[in-house]
């Protein structure tokens, strides 16, 4: 994704009366960005956070999106009153927005992909198959657009952040991160 972000010139940017943050910043980074832009309308990537909690705390947050685990240029975008403007801003950054009406921690696609990637790492760690065969099996057995390892490559840290968020919010062991995945993420 770093390469894609670079190509699309994505980062923290200001356009008209909007401030846009599409980075994979920490919680403190996100809060700092919102506080610094309290006089603007903010569009923020919150793939690794609970968007509902951010909306509640920061009225300047007008739209939230999830670009960080996209394997193409499509992303989920949620906005109560500013969807069209926010979608236009994302389009200028190279993203095609698809409206999400319901809010979810980790959104829909990143959350699902994170759990698939986690299981792929458990499967690899338990020597059920090698990574290439796991990727191939998911593509040619059930038509996945990309194998889980290829999907996560270079973005393992984001996958871990999504799973940790879900574990923290749901207190459910299904979100415990594979030690192999966590190790891989720490190498990035």
């Amino acid at each position: 994704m770093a390469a894609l972000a670079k190509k699309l010139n994505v980062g923290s940017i200001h356009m008209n009366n909007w401030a846009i943050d599409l980075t994979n910043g920490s919680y403190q980074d996100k809060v700092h960005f919102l506080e610094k832009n309290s006089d603007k309308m903010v569009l923020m990537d919150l793939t690794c956070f609970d968007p509902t909690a951010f909306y509640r705390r920061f009225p300047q947050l007008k739209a939230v999106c999830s670009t960080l685990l996209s394997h193409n240029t499509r992303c989920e975008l949620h906005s109560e009153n500013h969807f069209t403007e926010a979608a236009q801003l994302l389009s200028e950054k190279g993203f095609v927005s698809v409206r999400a009406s319901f809010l979810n921690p980790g959104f829909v696609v990143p959350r699902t992909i994170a759990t698939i990637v986690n299981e792929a790492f458990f499967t690899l760690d338990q020597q059920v198959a090698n990574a290439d065969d796991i990727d191939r099996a998911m593509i040619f057995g059930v038509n996945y657009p990309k194998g889980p390892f290829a999907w996560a490559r270079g973005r393992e840290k984001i996958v871990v952040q999504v799973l940790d968020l879900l574990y923290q919010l749901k207190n459910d062991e299904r979100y415990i991160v594979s030690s192999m995945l966590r190790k891989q993420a720490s190498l990035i």
Partner: protein
Amino acid sequence: MGAGIAQWFAQQMIPAVLCDNNSEQTKKAITQIHSSWDKLVEKEKLTSCQVNQMKQLLEAREITALPKDTTLVIEAIIENLDIKKTLFAKLDKHFSIETIFASNTSSFPITQLASSVSSNRQKRFLGLHFFNPATLMKLVEVIKGQATQAGLAEELYAWFAEHKKEPALCADTPGFIVNRVARSFYGEALRIVENENEVYCKEVDMLMREVGGFKMGPFELMDLIGVDINYAVTSSVWEALGKNARFTPHPLQKKMVDLGRFGKKTKRGFYSYE
């Protein structure tokens, strides 16, 4: 699924014989395969010469009428452990010790199935898990049992790769690769919606297609496969992997099954098909 597998072999110009307890069933399957090939000739995807050859390569016979030196026998019968084991014991007596035995099971350990045959045959026993429809889906999971002789799975892996399949070599563990890793695709969607809500299911399906790039969303796919089948696979993998939380069936799945809402086949699943 046996018919689809036999059809695929014939399409590779390899002689294939369909066997079933019910000979009417095999005759019907062969008629259907012939008709699908004829349609491909009409669409100019195959020549009539190719189809004539393929028709000669595919036949139906009783097990007892099969050549003892058959290279490979693939079992693809009902997912019932006792019935499968009984069949393998019968096959073991009929075929030469060189014949390779394979099961297309999606749920039983290969090693457990192999225990129904002689110790020598166990060396020539492995899993070959095809995906439906076998003529179109390229994956074959090649599964080594505990006693499978070194090199046999790799040999079949290479053979399938040469014949336009996309094989994946895997250990004899519950769900193998696909039925294990794919559980999250459904399990997470169920945890996102939590309760029955057709509008929410529709949105999850749409986002998985439009943003994720999947051909179908999890709810429409569960309705197509059968909510009951999906629940049974999830429960079986969950049980076999020590009731690990990652595979816990969702209460909504069970509720749908209890209500008889199995999806398209009952005209009601996560969506209505009335």
